């Protein structure tokens, strides 16, 4: 089974080379989706001699992941991994995340920051934003996992074909959980570590996610 690692990157010149170097030996193909970066992300990724898909304008992380998925499926991916370009996930945990897929126990695996492994999560995030995200997931999409907004996940080919990421922005995290349940995929959660270099999604970003999810429910 060919493993593809999709890494959406938007202005990540500081971390991209390091992330590529760490992930490259662990997967069959690494695909950077440069989401219209205005820094040197594209040049740096290109010099690493890997597959790079270039969004000519910024369309959001969800859109970049969907581009990566489409490319990976067209190029014979057996397993697709979604990874972040900012260096907050550990490359060595990729094998743990894809293990349930390799053994055929799951169609989709979500990395969870709340299953025992230690993360240096900022308090405000842990006690305010994350509980709010759980609540939003429950109310708007009706489902939630131990980690409501996990960006580290892996899918089998069958799983990836059934998940259609329509949310261009950050609401894709909830959207993928929703579609995984809706398509009755076999879901597993695996503990992961997250190293916070920066705060990540703030309250304002969280509210935008909620708005996007509600709008999507109204339209679809």
């Amino acid at each position, binding site marked *: 089974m060919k493993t593809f690692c999709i890494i959406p990157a938007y202005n990540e010149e500081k971390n991209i080379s390091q992330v590529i170097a760490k992930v490259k030996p662990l997967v069959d193909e690494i695909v950077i*989706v440069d989401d*219209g970066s205005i820094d040197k992300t594209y040049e740096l990724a290109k010099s690493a001699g890997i597959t790079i*898909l*270039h*969004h*000519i*304008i910024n*369309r959001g992380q969800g*859109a970049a992941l*969907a*581009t990566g998925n*489409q*490319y990976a499926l*067209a190029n014979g991916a057996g397993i697709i991994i979604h990874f972040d370009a900012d260096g907050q996930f550990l490359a060595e945990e990729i094998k743990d995340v894809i293990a349930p897929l390799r053994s055929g126990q799951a169609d989709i695996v979500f990395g969870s920051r709340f299953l025992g492994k230690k993360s240096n999560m900022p308090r405000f995030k842990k006690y305010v934003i994350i509980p709010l995200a759980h609540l939003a997931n429950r109310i708007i999409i009706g489902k939630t996992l131990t980690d409501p907004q996990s960006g580290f996940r892996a899918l089998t080919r069958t799983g990836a074909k059934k998940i259609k990421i*329509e949310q*261009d922005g950050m609401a894709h995290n909830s959207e993928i959980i929703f579609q995984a349940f809706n398509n009755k995929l076999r879901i597993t959660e695996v503990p992961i570590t997250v190293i916070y270099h920066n705060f990540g999604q703030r309250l304002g970003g969280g509210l935008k996610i909620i708005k996007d999810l509600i*709008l999507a429910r109204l*339209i679809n």
Partner: protein
Amino acid sequence: MLQQVLALIIIAFFLARLFWQKQKKQINANEFIFWLIFWLLAAAAIITLKWIDKIVDKLGFSGSGIDILLYVAIIILFYLIFRLRLRLVKIEKDITKIVRSIAIKK
């Protein structure tokens, strides 16, 4: 009475603009018909304002006809904004599709 005449003059101005835009082919047929009906209805409402006052009164509203027209106008505005938002979402999705296809073809 003077107010009604003023309102009708303003509507006549917008109608004239509408026909002018149509002649210059700046708007399509659907859009033209929508605004034509919109302004004609507005003119009709102003001409029959006394009559609307009576209907509104019979329906049990405390305000006068012009108040009710204002409420209706705001409801219509909200509806139009909602439609505009839906259109924007669709355009955003289309842009993403184009950007994606360019990214994958390269």
